[in-house]
């Protein structure tokens, strides 16, 4: 299991970057400590969830509600309510796709935070393609295939910009990816006002997706995107564990000069990583439009790209962990949606708890690296 804190390194010697945080992994050996056999890789996220819910309980008490009641109705909203589980699956879909991209990137120590922009580009371009004149009357499966490709390509291109700015100019990916979120939000407003606007619509919005809309799958009660997102988990896990591409990514995360010494350009691996992460986010954008929203409107930017960071870190950058974390974070969203309303709590409370989770994960990682010695 890769710990975020377990490698000293620099990428092209620029420490602002996608590179060199922290940590001296040999340290614990120097202090004569031995790694403990129980890996904290599952303990830290579970303990973080518990801690975040405990702090959340205090906040709920301060707000004048009964935390047991609130949490009971959150759980009931997910597990007892008829649609609870399938709604959770639907809500988890974009989070899992986006977080898998982050996991891929963070493993390579490419710190991007701009999936929101790549998600939006995926949504804009795919909706533009499948609602275009002459295209929108094509049969559903063709349109969906087109939308998937357009969304993934657009997201990859938007992510690719940050890769080029980094590899050619040394511009920090953390910052450039975020700047591009704001540019993407402006692009969204323009696109639904001018080029892909539904002429019938009073407010700026795209046409309905029509044949490109994804129906509910039997038994699952959610759309195709969920199946794709969950399937991506094992595929990426295999890639990391068995394939040379996954190996190069982890080498880039640990010692990029070793890559260059073996004639694999670290820049090329960085590009590959940002393209793949952007593609996954763009795919999430198309699936969200065709599976949930049904059209592109001005409120398409809901911050899923940022919640995805929480999911990736809670899932410990492990693809299977990310799928589990995506379901957990989406479950909180779905459960709190009803619970917060019925207990008269602000809807943003769930966001506070989710963000607390990631803060506890970060703290737990640092503690684990220091006192237990995380496996490398």
């Amino acid at each position, binding site marked *: 299991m890769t710990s*975020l*804190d377990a490698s*000293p390194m620099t990428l092209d010697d*620029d*420490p*602002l970057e996608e*590179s*060199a*945080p*922290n*940590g*001296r992994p*040999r*340290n614990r050996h*120097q202090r004569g400590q031995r790694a403990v056999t129980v890996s904290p890789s599952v303990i830290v996220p579970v303990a973080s969830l518990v801690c975040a819910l405990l702090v959340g309980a205090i906040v709920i008490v301060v*707000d004048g509600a009964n935390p047991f009641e609130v949490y009971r109705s959150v759980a009931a909203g997910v597990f007892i309510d008829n649609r609870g589980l399938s709604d959770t699956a639907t809500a988890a879909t974009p989070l899992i796709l986006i977080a898998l991209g982050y996991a891929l990137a*963070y493993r390579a120590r490419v*710190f991007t*935070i701009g999936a929101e922009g790549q998600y939006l580009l995926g949504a804009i371009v795919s909706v533009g393609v499948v609602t275009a004149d002459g295209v929108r009357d094509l049969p559903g499966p063709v349109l969906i295939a087109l939308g998937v490709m357009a969304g993934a390509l657009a997201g990859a291109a938007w992510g690719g910009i940050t890769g080029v*700015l980094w590899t050619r*100019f*040394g*511009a*920090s990916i*953390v*910052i*450039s990816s*975020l*700047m*591009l*979120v*704001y*540019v993407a*939000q*402006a*692009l969204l*407003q*323009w696109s639904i*006002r*001018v080029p892909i606007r539904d002429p019938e619509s009073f407010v700026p919005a795209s046409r309905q997706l029509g044949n490109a809309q994804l129906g509910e799958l039997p038994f699952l009660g959610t759309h195709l995107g969920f199946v794709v997102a969950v399937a991506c988990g094992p595929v990426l896990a295999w890639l990391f564990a068995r394939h040379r591409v996954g190996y190069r990514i982890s080498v880039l995360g640990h010692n990029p000069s070793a890559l260059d010494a073996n004639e694999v350009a670290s820049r090329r691996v960085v590009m590959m990583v940002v393209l793949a992460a952007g593609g996954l986010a763009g795919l999430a954008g198309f699936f969200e439009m065709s599976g949930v929203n049904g059209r592109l409107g001005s409120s398409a930017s809901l911050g899923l790209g940022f919640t995805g*960071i*929480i999911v990736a*870190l809670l899932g410990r950058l492990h693809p299977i962990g990310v799928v589990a974390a995506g379901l957990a974070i989406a479950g909180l969203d779905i459960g709190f949606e009803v619970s917060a309303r019925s207990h008269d709590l*602000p*809807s*943003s*409370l769930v*966001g*506070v708890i989710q*963000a*607390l989770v*990631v*803060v506890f994960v*970060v*703290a737990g*990682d*640092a*503690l684990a*690296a*220091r006192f237990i010695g995380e496996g490398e």
Partner: protein
Amino acid sequence: MSTIFTLATIAAALRLSIPVALAAMGAVVSERSGVLNLGVEGMMLSGAFAAYSAAEATGSPWIGLLAGTGVGALTGALLVLFVVVGRSNQIVTGIAFTLLASYLTTYLFQRNYSIGQVPPRLNRIGLVGLVVMTVVLVVVVYYLLQRTTFGLALGAVGESPEAADALGYDVVRIRSIATVIGGSFAGLGGAALVCGPLGLFIENVTGGRGWVALALVVFSGWKTFPVVAGAFLFGLSDAVQLRLQGTQSALPYEFFLALPYLLTLLALVLRARASRTPAALGVAFVRGAH
């Protein structure tokens, strides 16, 4: 175009550049000591919310500025606990801080001003007051970094903590102080936005200005006066953007919405390679690790 660059635009540019300039100066201080603070956006937001609450309760925007600075210092101290003492990953920790601040301020704001109720506007601080305060602080920071023993030690700690340690400087202490100063400035920056040009708080009111500040630090080459100049350019594009939104123009108004961020990207691209990064930026110090 001649009507754009009027005195009013310049004044608006100054108003909008001061929050970014303050946050960026703080980031220069903490980054020079080797602590990369990606929580600046979150610290600005925390300061902005604290300032709004305090100014609204007391009626004095100056008390708002104080509250924002205080909360900023607290968030800086919290960051110290994580990255300097706990040696957590500086990039991930900063991002986590910003996420938490974004949700927490949204929550507190929703809780205190339930939806539908219009949050009251503040008495705003005039431009002159803000400018005087900023100029004084710029000079103080410049003097601190360039002309004091502490400033030199701070730079040494950011370049080569091992050497500074061998010379007897307390690396952890210096970095902690620098990070708290950085947090205070970020909080003050957020406060100056709310108590200055805006006079109100809305969800995620800082709108990425903390990230812009971080980009400007790179643009400036980690120097005090250039970072303030960069902030003015950002403020100018922000002011022009606001002015052009209401007018007829060949370009769609959304382009002007994106303009400040595009210019920030451009600044980053132009200067990223040329700037001298502090050598130990983002690297935790562990005594005896080498």
